[in-house]
């Protein structure tokens, strides 16, 4: 392993260590997601004023734009993790890549559906084949392709390798989605939130949007860590550390079943 990678990263990428780490982080990530999400929703649905042009219909922005951003961001993470898994053959990278795909697909689907529900009243159509909408749909197909490829091989590692290749090749679509509104004539308008320069949205509408962007990031971590933990258990099921967990799970569920059984007996008596 390269010398510049600190020891704790090296240690963390071992399955039992990451399993424990993820188990600690996950509930906190979910809590942060729910809290920031609730604040964002209150800010966007209740506090923010109606738009001068779109009235209250624009409020779809508070879920559509963060989902769109996540659909691209997660693809980037998936592509990078795929690359690492192919070059360095690190199991954790492979799991992160493969389990990011369904989450990314979920956000892409949400983007397309909420966008359609927004487009019908504002533009006058549920769909159009302009560069932005079409490339986002292609992104969904790429995600589904990665998921399908991963599951189509009996040997999971082989499936992951094939899926990783697709993920890496598909990264070209991410800048296409983002710059589509600049490069081509589109029905979809240009970017509202700018990283360099002022954003074209008033402050009381911007802060709920940015807060929801943070909430979806926390959510991604919570969802990803849950999926990675489940995957690690099944991938390493022959190992002792997994068997220990299976034992503990059995006694825990037996104990709660016992408690439930005892309670039932008591209530029947």
């Amino acid at each position, binding site marked *: 392993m390269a010398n510049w990678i600190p020891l704790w990263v090296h240690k963390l990428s071992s399955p039992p260590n990451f399993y424990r780490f993820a188990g600690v982080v996950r509930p906190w990530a979910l809590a942060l997601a729910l809290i920031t999400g609730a604040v964002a929703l209150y800010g966007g649905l209740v506090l923010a004023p109606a738009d001068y042009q779109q009235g209250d219909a624009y409020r779809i922005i508070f879920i559509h734009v963060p989902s769109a951003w996540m659909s691209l961001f997660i693809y980037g993470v998936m592509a990078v993790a795929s690359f690492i898994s192919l070059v360095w053959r690190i199991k954790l990278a492979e799991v992160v890549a493969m389990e990011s795909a369904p989450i990314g697909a979920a956000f892409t*689907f949400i983007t397309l559906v909420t966008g359609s529900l927004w487009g019908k009243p504002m533009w006058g159509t549920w769909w159009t084949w302009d560069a932005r909408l079409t490339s986002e749909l292609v992104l969904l197909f790429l995600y589904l392709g990665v998921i399908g490829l991963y599951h189509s091989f009996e040997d999971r590692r082989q499936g992951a390798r094939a899926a990783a290749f697709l993920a890496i090749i598909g990264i070209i679509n991410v800048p296409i989605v983002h710059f589509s509104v600049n490069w081509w004539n589109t029905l979809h308008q240009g970017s509202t939130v700018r990283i360099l320069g002022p954003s074209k949205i008033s402050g009381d509408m911007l802060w709920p949007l940015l807060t929801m962007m943070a909430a979806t990031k926390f959510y991604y971590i919570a969802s990803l860590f849950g999926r990675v933990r489940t995957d690690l258990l099944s991938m390493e099921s022959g190992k002792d550390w997994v068997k220990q967990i299976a034992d503990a799970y059995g006694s825990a569920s037996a104990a709660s079943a016992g408690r439930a059984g005892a309670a039932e007996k008591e209530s029947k008596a």
Partner: protein
Amino acid sequence: MSAFLAMGGYAMYVWPAYAVFFIVLIADYLNPSLRRRRNLRELRSRMARQAARQQRNPTPP
């Protein structure tokens, strides 16, 4: 409150959009838990079968 729900006349677009957002993400979040429970149950039965086999045919020292 009814003005809030009416969303300026766009309620039939805004609320389904929010519903899709929540339903899809909840489904996504719960997915691994169901898998995990199933996997652990299967692993436990496999381990039990293995233990039973070991008892019947103890490996020689």
